[in-house]
């Protein structure tokens, strides 16, 4: 049979005790270095990263909010601008329409005036012509009636008189 320690080793075996302590110490150092350090390291890194991501998300959200307000403002500005543009255009168009209307009215008025003037002139001319014709006809009729030559001066005085009488009637 091999040599063996007692089943319940009392008193304790010194060498085994020393080896137990050495083993425990070495294993403790190795486990700490090989397992706990890298794992705690990576957990810490992950926590840092999550914190950073959270921060980034926060700043991004803030940024987005700022952008939103900016755009809302811009949109509102654009709206008012568009409204003012439309209002200007309407005003311009109105003014232009008014002008066109007034122009055309003026033109029409002047045309009417011109037409009336022309009508009057023509009427006058016609009256003059009619007067002349009537005069010559009257002269002719008179000369035929009286069969008497009048001198030119008396004739024209007579014509004038006749004319005036006619003109008054006309």
């Amino acid at each position, binding site marked *: *049979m*091999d*040599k*063996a*320690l*007692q*089943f*319940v*080793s*009392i008193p*304790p*075996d010194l*060498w*085994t*005790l020393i*080896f*137990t*302590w050495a*083993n*425990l110490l*070495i*294993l*403790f150092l*190795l*486990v*700490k270095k*090989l*397992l*706990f350090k*890298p*794992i*705690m390291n*990576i*957990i810490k*890194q*992950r926590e840092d*990263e999550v914190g950073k991501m959270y921060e980034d998300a926060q700043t991004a959200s803030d940024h987005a909010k700022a952008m939103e307000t900016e755009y809302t403002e811009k949109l509102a500005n654009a709206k008012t601008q568009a409204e003012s543009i439309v209002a200007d255009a309407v005003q311009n168009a109105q003014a232009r329409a008014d002008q066109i209307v007034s122009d055309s009215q003026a033109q029409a008025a002047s045309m009417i005036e011109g037409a009336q003037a022309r009508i009057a002139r023509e009427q006058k001319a016609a009256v003059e012509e009619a007067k002349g014709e009537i005069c010559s006809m009257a002269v002719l009729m008179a000369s035929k009636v009286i069969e008497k030559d009048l001198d030119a001066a008396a004739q024209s005085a007579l014509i004038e008189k006749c004319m005036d009488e006619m003109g008054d009637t006309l």
Partner: protein
Amino acid sequence: MNISVSGPKILFEWGSFHITETVVNGWIIMAVIVLLCIWLTHGLKLRNPSKKQIVAEKLVMMATNMVRDTMGEKYIGFAPYIGTLFAFSVLGSLSSLLGMRPMTGDLNTTLGWALVTFVLVQGNNIRINGLGGWLKSFVQPVAVMLPMNIIGEIANPISMAFRHFGNIASGIVISTLIYSALGALSSTILSFIPVEFINSIPILQVGLPAMLSIYFDLFTGFLQAYIFCMLTMSFVSGVE
């Protein structure tokens, strides 16, 4: 029939120096634990951790959380020691499933660990209360209590050592007894076969002891490791 339950064998001897089975088994378990650590922490990634990394992180967090819950935040540095102790103790007890002599079934191992706890407790006491305070704590509340206090302090590691050792050793004794009883039983059953070779085959020794050792080794091994770590933690952090 001769049943013998022996202590750890002496594998190497040189003068008074000797290395026992316990120590060699301890080295094997240490190698297993260290290789496991290296394998688990190989290729750690910050994102999309692999399954083994999740397991490793879970183990570390379990040890850390246990220490934090039991000892508080200021003793969090004890987590690697407690984790090491737990793993060493569990694997040391479970090694009997592979036919090795359980490391914790040797009083020297558990006594060594219990003495480490004792030193940690007294060291923590000195660190907190100072040398004078530590010495004074032995004559509290009255000077007559001095021997009682000393015995009380010394009883802790001895009780821890014997508790762990006794549980595992009783497992060894019971396994040995059942093993030899099954051997005797199977040779009785097979004795109607006149051939010497066949009726010496211990058929009942196959499988059946393994079932029993699942209770005696697995359950007891885990429970005692847990209790040893728990007591270490509460003794160390219980110093006022």
